[in-house]
């Protein structure tokens, strides 16, 4: 909305240029991706690699198509866990981050602790979560995902809210602004880039957390169990097909966060580079 009213008289022309540039930006990585798949396929055939070591992409694609309903059911099951984990972990991380940023004493006593806990391999707790919340309960995996998201989001939120340009704080003080006004008008906008960076990390973490949680036990129609089961049967095309879906969850959620970031802070330096070039 604001972008449209932004600089220059040649807004119409530059959007056309931008679109062309965006298409070109997408074409190259896509070409590389398809090329890599082709090389992979050819290599597997030429080297005669057995299917249980590395199946050819064409085989994986065939298996993907053949088992689509089952894979789709597994993916939606796992996706629900990932989303639940993101909601609990990021929501909790933001809330606790705001609280710790608000009260300096709390931050100083809590943040070192949070950093320490963050370095614990939380994945190690996955089997315990299954005991606590039940093997067949989606909540047990969502909690693993939430644990993985919580600390990066909390630490970045607290950091973003407290690392504000001192000159901006002085300005607000000179204007006799209240703490709440400073929080709303300065701290929150300054923290947004930090929070979004953490949210991008969190999408990957949540996907990892949910799938690893499933490795330790979950209904058979879940990505984690799907991968484990067919790997054990040496039916690797099907495992790979499930891995492709797992990747799609991770990448898809990441892109959603990027999209929201663009909508929420179109003013940010990373998004104005393109506009300035025109």
């Amino acid at each position: 909305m604001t972008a449209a009213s932004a600089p220059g008289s040649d807004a119409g022309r530059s959007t056309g240029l931008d679109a062309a540039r965006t298409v070109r930006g997408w074409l190259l990585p896509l070409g590389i991706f398809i090329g890599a798949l082709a090389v992979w396929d050819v290599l597997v055939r030429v080297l005669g690699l057995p299917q249980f070591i590395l199946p050819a992409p064409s085989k994986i694609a065939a298996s993907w198509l053949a088992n689509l309903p089952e894979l789709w059911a597994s993916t939606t099951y796992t996706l629900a866990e990932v989303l639940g984990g993101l909601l609990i972990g990021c929501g909790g991380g933001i809330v606790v981050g705001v609280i710790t940023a608000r009260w300096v004493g709390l931050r100083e006593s809590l943040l070192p602790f949070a950093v320490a806990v963050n370095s614990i391999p939380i994945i190690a707790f996955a089997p315990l979560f299954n005991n606590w919340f039940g093997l067949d309960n989606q909540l047990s995996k969502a909690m693993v995902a939430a644990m993985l998201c919580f600390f990066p989001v909390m630490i970045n939120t607290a950091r973003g809210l407290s690392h504000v340009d001192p000159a901006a704080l002085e300005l607000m003080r000179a204007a006799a602004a209240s703490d709440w006004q400073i929080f709303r008008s300065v701290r929150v906008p300054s923290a947004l880039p930090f929070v979004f960076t953490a949210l991008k990390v969190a999408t990957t973490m949540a996907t990892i957390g949910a799938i690893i949680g499933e490795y330790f036990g979950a209904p058979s129609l879940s990505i984690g169990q799907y991968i484990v089961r067919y790997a054990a049967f040496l039916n690797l095309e099907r495992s790979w097909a499930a891995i492709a879906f797992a990747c799609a969850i991770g990448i898809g959620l990441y892109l959603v966060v990027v999209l929201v970031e663009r909508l929420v802070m179109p003013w940010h330096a990373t998004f104005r580079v393109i506009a300035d070039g025109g």
Partner: protein
Amino acid sequence: MSEQPTDRPTSPRPSDDAVVELTSVSKVFWGTGRGAVRVEALSHIDLSIRRGEFVSLIGPSGCGKSTLLRIVGDLIGVSDGTVMVNGKFARAARIGREYGMVFQAPVLFDWRTVQRNVELPLEIVGRPRAEREAKARQMLELVELGDFAGHHPWQLSGGMQQRAAIARALVLDPAILLMDEPFGALDEMTRERMNLELLRIWERTGTTVVFVTHSIPEAVFLSTRVVVMSARPGRITKVVPIDLPRHRDVETRETERYFELVTEVREALRGSEGESGATEAARRVAAEGLA
């Protein structure tokens, strides 16, 4: 401007005419770390600034001129002495928004348009939207940024950003404008243009200006009085009245009187430096060695 009759310098008592009244103001900073170093930033400053004046504070770096400005604006507290701003204690004056402040950096928020940046103080005071918009527009016209209201700060040049900051500082019609080296980061040509611009704004608004700078020509060109300060302890060593005609333009910089005044300020500065400069440098080296 403010319509209250009390603001008019009609009162018989001469002290009512003083918008800023500093009485024996001292400020001591304690260095952090081992062997806490005591730094006397300001020592017994007495200064009275009348309504409508343009007073520049000039001095070597470390003389406490920015500290003094921040004390007037209640951004820093005093260690001793009293600060009265527009008849109130500094803190009450800040809370009553008696002054507008312009810093060396424009401090505009990237997430707001230029217009919305200027509206910020009005927003903080809780003025209705229509009034905010009208008033901000009026201020942007005053600093000749009317065409850039919808732009974002990063789309403006350094000089334009600083003009937006001035518009923001003036948006509440403050009695005083406090400026801390506002043009220090600008190139010489932009700076001279901004000086003319500022004089025009000062003439139009009638605001009292307290202006911190380390440029002698700038101080002489803008001011009605130049306050020369020396370093540690920060003190006022001389006050030079600038008796140039009130209306100044490009040619003022070429008059004989202008050069005489520049020389006078320069000599006052040199005098204050010779007094404490050399020993101060040695003391500072020693202090850094301790830290």
